[in-house]
């Protein structure tokens, strides 16, 4: 168990490694449905979240659908 520093939606965040994208989404209490994630600017499909692990200095962007015209 080591602490790593990642960047989530332009905010620094410290997490305990190993941590998968699924675990990060759960930690953020976000719903899977209607959520999309990019790691280091590459979109990661939902079925790959459980096996995609984060490394030190990774950038994660989490998007969701909101009201809009």
């Amino acid at each position: 168990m080591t602490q790593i520093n990642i960047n989530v939606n332009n905010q620094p965040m410290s997490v305990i490694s190993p941590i998968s994208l699924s675990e990060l989404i759960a930690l953020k209490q976000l719903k899977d449905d209607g959520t999309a994630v990019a790691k280091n600017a590459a979109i990661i499909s939902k079925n790959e979240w459980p096996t995609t692990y984060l490394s030190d200095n990774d950038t994660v962007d989490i998007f969701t659908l909101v009201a809009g015209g």
Partner: protein
Amino acid sequence: MLTLANHTFPSRLLTGTGKFSNPSIMKNAVKAAQSSIVTLAMKRVASHSAQDETLSALKALGVTLLPNTSGAKNAKEAVFAAELAYEALGSPWVKLEIHPDQRYLLPDPIETLLAAEALVKKGFHVLPYCGADPVLCKRLEEVGCVAVMPLGAPIGSNQGLQTKPFLQIIVEQSSIPVIVDAGIGKPSEAMAAMEMGVDAVLVNTAIATAQNPVAMAEAFASAVVTGRKAFEAGLGATSDLAQASSPLTAFLEPTL
């Protein structure tokens, strides 16, 4: 019935979900509008509290969700936004919008065409928001868009059909559905667009910012139905001179 990419939709009124004072009013307005297709936007969100209830409210209505690429400033960003929306919803529908200028939010025609072509190749059903430019609309049709969405006036301006003569040319020339997006501020303007023969209209601000959004949504719904009925009935010809509606007999004139 509106047909897009071999799918049929009962309503010709698309509704946007922005600017409503809360998700419950939005949901009731969409229901009152009887819309089959509803737009959404993508946003970075970092916590559960920031995740709004729009999506769950819309899923309960069973409408087709049309995510937009608002916020994209060029083709590359728009393609990325569309792919994110696909991951989030698992649906190929996308309203392509690229407006780098914040003051008038006018769509960038070159980036829009580039993004449309790329997204069609990736298998998206692309509905591009674009200027009321008949040549651009034909180019968007040629690259495989399922509809074009020319503007009536700047987004959210409620100025109505400022581009009417150009919309008429687009309707005349287009082989794919024409959906007037942006600027429609009153039901009478939605009706006027439908009377011209556009296939559908997209309304957001005019409903969301009305004093009573639900009643306004109903008003737009009936205006769109009436306008379409008038178009299908075939409008009578206009003329510069009077054309008598009654027989011009001389029986009221004094006999000589």
